[in-house]
């Protein structure tokens, strides 16, 4: 197989991937960005507007609401997922009873289609038919009943919790895989030196799992900016777009309101935001590694 390692063959084998990547990822991004400078209803010719869509975007109250919602979900999901998934992974990495069954149970929401996840949670959180409010009422805590979804305040928090529930098992699995990579002799040496559990985590596990933690963090960041089905299924972005995230608002503007140009400017800003946050995170963690 000597001949395959030549540069020109490597290029030959990369071409299909490059072509597919360019046609289905790079080109649509370029087209979307170019439409963001136009007024286009999806029919006929697009009219060039310059930066008007971006100016409108910064004056749009609903854009700021959807950005605020996305950030609430992001902060909650980031903090909860990273810490809880890591702690559960530490727990499941021990030889406990029923550890395999627990892993399967925790992973199970990750294999449910997001649209079904939304339906399940509607039956839990709906203010009228949802189990949560009914339980509160049954226990005489009617005053604690809330519009968990479909109200003005709680919807983004509920979406964050649903996303957390859905993603937890998947991220726990990645953390467990990371934990398995830590050499046993390092851990044993640590124990012989008299380190307690907290010190093991602080001085060995976290430093040795930096790459895994970074991967999980990037997955959470990019994942939050792609939450769509959960919002569509639980609230449809309502009432009146007040529970929209950036992605659902962009979708709604593009396909429901037929503002294709404005919708693409929202999509472009969402794309840039997720790039910036990922870059900041990568920069900060890189600094620490030095």
């Amino acid at each position, binding site marked *: 197989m000597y001949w395959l390692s030549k540069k020109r063959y490597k290029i030959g084998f990369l071409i*299909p991937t490059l072509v597919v990547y360019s046609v289905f990822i790079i080109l649509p991004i370029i087209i979307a960005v170019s439409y963001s400078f136009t007024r286009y209803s999806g*029919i*006929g010719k697009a009219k060039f507007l310059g930066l008007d869509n971006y100016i409108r975007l910064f004056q749009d109250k609903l854009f700021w609401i959807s950005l605020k919602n996305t950030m609430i979900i992001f902060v909650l999901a980031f903090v909860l997922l990273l810490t809880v998934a890591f702690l559960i992974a530490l727990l499941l990495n021990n030889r406990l009873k029923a550890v395999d069954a627990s892993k399967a149970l925790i992973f199970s929401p990750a294999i449910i289609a997001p649209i079904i996840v939304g339906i399940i949670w509607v039956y839990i959180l709906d203010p009228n038919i949802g189990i949560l409010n009914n339980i509160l009422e049954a226990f005489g805590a009617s005053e604690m009943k809330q*519009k968990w979804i*479909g109200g003005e305040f709680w919807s983004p928090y509920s979406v964050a919790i649903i996303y957390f529930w859905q993603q937890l098992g998947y991220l726990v699995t990645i953390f467990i895989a990371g934990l398995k990579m830590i050499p046993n002799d390092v851990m044993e040496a640590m124990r012989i030196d008299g380190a307690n559990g907290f010190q093991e985590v602080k001085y060995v596990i976290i430093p040795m799992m930096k790459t895994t933690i970074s991967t999980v963090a990037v997955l959470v960041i990019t994942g939050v900016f792609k939450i769509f089905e959960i919002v569509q299924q639980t609230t449809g972005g309502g009432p*009146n777009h007040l529970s929209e995230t950036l992605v659902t608002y962009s979708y709604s503007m593009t396909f*429901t309101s037929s*503002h294709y140009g404005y919708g693409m400017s929202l999509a472009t800003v969402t794309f840039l935001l997720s790039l910036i946050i990922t870059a900041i995170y990568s920069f900060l963690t890189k600094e620490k590694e030095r």
Partner: protein
Amino acid sequence: MRSKKLKKWYSVLLTSVMVVGLLTGCSFSGKDSDKRADGGEVVIDFGIHVANPKEQEKVTYNIVQAFNEKNKGKYKVEFQAADTESHSKNMKLAASDNTLPEIFWLDASEAPEYDEAGVLLDLSGFLAQNSDVKNALGSMKSAFTDDNGQFGLPYQCNVQGIFYNKELFDKAGVAYPTNETTYEDMLSMIAKFKENGIIPLSIGSKNSGFAMWEFNETLARYGWEENIESILAGDKKFNNKDLVACFEKLKGLADAGAFPENMATIEYFDAKQLFNIGQAAMFGTGQWDCAEFDKNIGNKIGFWWGPIFTDTAYEQKIAMKVPSAPIVVNAKVAEDKAVQEAVFEFLKFYYSKEAAELSYEGSIFPATNYEGMGAADTQYAMNAMLNALASGWKSPSTAPDLTVTSAVQEALYNSLFGVMQKTYTPEEALDLMDDVLKNTK
């Protein structure tokens, strides 16, 4: 050496096949320009806004079947079916790459945009050739004309208003609404329903902004038809004293608790279900739900044009019998005589007396107005509508929500539901519409 060369060629060939396969596999299948099926019949595609026409648009399905049966071996109509949102997206994509079906349903607010793009056939010629169809359609066809001609024909005739469950009215001790029932009377009704644990007016806003049909009368009774042209021309604003008064009434209904508490998390279909199972006293919709109400509510169903208002000088005796969204014809049809003939034959049949009879049988009002049509005694919901229509109240030429572009229409839906859900004040809601109108100019 020879084997190495062979390997090289083999790998190059494999790579090429992969690239070609990936690209062609993801591309459109391409449309057969020859519209003749194996049997020699001309096949025309009918793009429809429901995923399962046999179940969801029974009348249209039956008309198409009857046409196919009658024209076996000559013409055949096949559905291209998708739910409304997907259908809308599909048609836009098809318009951009010239693969639109021969006939297709369009949302009324989107149709003028297609017409402007030049992808629709002017049907004036068809109407000129078929004066019986032209006469049968009467004024219904005028909703879909512009400077370019007749860009579409009404799919059906929509009769919209409030259905009510007489049994629940009796249970709550509320008198059935009449043409004289005022908005203030309606507020009293709502209070009584609330006392009896009955949802007064079922409605859902999740992904269902369009489901505001009962409020078309309300808008019309506050002068929508009289003012919309000057608003769209920029001479007047949506935020004017008439529409503020109109939106104040919606706020009043919300304050009185007229709607389900979870209206933000239920869709139109869920709201209808609340009415079907006897949890809600009233439900705003159109004739397309008649068959379902016959099955679930039977002879306990009633129909009402909604409350009249005493704080406005505009005409209150307004019904809502209006053309529904149009069906349109792909402009490319004119390039093939055989296809055009097939399309025109189908349209002739679709607007024939025979098709109108099929419509009435399925509790749908056709766009045509042939004499001697009526509903059977067991079509309770349709008969309730026919009784209401017998009052002779005038209807606007087009339903208010269909008089604006899709973007403004969406803003109207948001505004109405915003007031009903108390997320906007009437003035804020109307300002939102003004903003959207400004941005679409």
